[in-house]
């Protein structure tokens, strides 16, 4: 069996002549946080879309726990433990916080969905807002609810697309701290797309850098930060 929880091999998504992703290879180990960085349009969100089945692959293969999931739809991949949040907050606005998290947990086949939902809500400090209709929540709370929906059912891999977008510095750092704690506590592996470099370099075990749909560098944070090509393409000379 593969040592990797998740493996993307030669993944490509082309739209006619435009190569949104081209020949991307990436791995994720158990309990690891891999940060994905790069300029806008580099392919970071597209790689999450490719792995979760939101966009069909032009080429390549995605394996989860050693099993090829490339041919599966989003629902099946989620059932196998591949979960995600979205760049724009993606929740059920008309439902209460507890009802939607409990529903997600139920759909994930948790034996006691109410208990699982409560644990997730507590973990993200949303339990006191359980009976609130989601549209009445503040923005930061909605972001946390988005994360809660991705966390139910104890996924193997959690893919977070700019989870800190729009949050205050304090909220970002609190959420980053939470994430780091969750990976070891719940044994979940994380792919993190984020523009806040303090957060990415602060909590990632490894970092992959994208440019124009291709991986231009990957490695430990210090290694990536020192890479001249990365500095030139994205971080800038003062990084």
């Amino acid at each position, binding site marked *: 069996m593969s040592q990797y929880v998740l493996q993307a091999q030669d993944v490509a998504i082309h739209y006619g002549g435009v190569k949104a992703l081209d020949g991307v290879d990436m791995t994720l180990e158990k309990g690891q946080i891999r940060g994905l960085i790069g300029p806008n349009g580099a392919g970071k969100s597209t790689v999450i879309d490719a792995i979760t089945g939101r966009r069909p692959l032009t080429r390549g293969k995605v394996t989860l726990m050693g099993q090829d999931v490339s041919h599966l739809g989003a629902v099946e991949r989620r059932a196998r433990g591949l979960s995600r949040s979205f760049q724009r907050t993606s929740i*059920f*606005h008309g*439902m209460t916080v507890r*009802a939607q998290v409990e529903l997600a947990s139920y*759909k994930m086949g948790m034996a006691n969905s109410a208990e699982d939902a409560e644990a997730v809500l507590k973990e993200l400090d949303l339990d006191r807002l359980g009976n609130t209709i989601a*549209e009445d929540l503040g923005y930061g709370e909605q972001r946390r609810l988005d994360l809660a*929906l991705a966390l139910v059912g104890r996924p193997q891999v959690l893919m977070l697309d700019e989870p800190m977008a729009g949050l205050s510095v304090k909220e970002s750092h609190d959420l980053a701290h939470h994430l780091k704690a969750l990976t070891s506590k719940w044994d979940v592996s994380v792919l993190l797309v984020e523009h806040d470099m303090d957060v990415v370099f602060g909590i990632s075990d490894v970092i992959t850098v994208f440019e124009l749909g291709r991986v231009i560098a990957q490695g430990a944070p210090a290694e990536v930060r020192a890479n001249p090509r990365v500095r030139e393409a994205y971080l800038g000379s003062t990084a």
Partner: protein
Amino acid sequence: MNMSMSRVSILSVLTLILGVGIMTFVTSSSLLAMFTQAVVYAISALGVGFLLRQNGLVSFGHALFFGAAGYGMGVILQLEWMSAEAAIFAVLGGLAVMGFLMGLVIVRVPGIAFGMLTLAIGQMAYLLATRATGMTGGTDGMSVAWPNEVFGFSQSVLLKPAVLFMIAWVLMVVVTYILLWVIRTRFGAITEAIRDNEERARFIGITTTVPRSLIFAISGVVTGIAGLLSSFNTGFVSPENLHWSVSAITLLMVVVGGFKRPVGPIVGAIVYFLFKDLLGEYATHSNAIFGAALIAVIVFSPDGITGAIERAFKGKKPAGAAHQPISH
């Protein structure tokens, strides 16, 4: 808003008692006939409102189910395929299957395109009914030959204005109760999740097409029940029952009454028929006046009369359309 089923049960019983009161104290046959017609339309609107509430989809073609129920019954009774009682269930079962299969194809289409598809399918059925003269009587329509006894009751008794009103009233209460129960089930929660955010629903493991198709089928059956009642009331069905204007009026009732509260469509139907009655000799212009009322409701209370009433009690501001998207 989300009252428990025990409270729903109590309210249902009280509503049934109210129906008995109306049946007992209203002695005018013409008034009872109007009430019956209002209740029939209320049931029809319940179907359209349920689709809008649970799927966020606006149907411009639900007259298809209203008319098809009458035609289905008429054809079965004419050809003597089965008893009237069995035919009722066969027609409703047929509508459920038809709605589900249609739903599998059309609920994937978002927003206004869905509305146009339902309109197109409804009008195709209308044209079919006008052209298939041999079976449907064409533009003249066909009589629905109900037998002398239905479910052991004499037709002459069942057709008494007070009795017919009570049958329609009981059906309306039962249908509402069932819809309220469905909304509170896990299935109801799943469909609300899909309505709110279909993509997120998929990413919490929900397959979206089948639940949406089932809602479409349920809503079609509910409107079909109204169509059956109408055919029993008049003993007749014509292409007019399938016409888009029937769908439009039903939809107006839903919008005026409010679709977020399951009983909103009933309120809309009652208001519509009250309008028609109060306008008296001006009734020929009732649709124009009701249209003006519709504009007023959309501007001042986008979630309808029931929304306005709820806000009046809770002191909330009107819910903007953006807060609850009606389609995805």
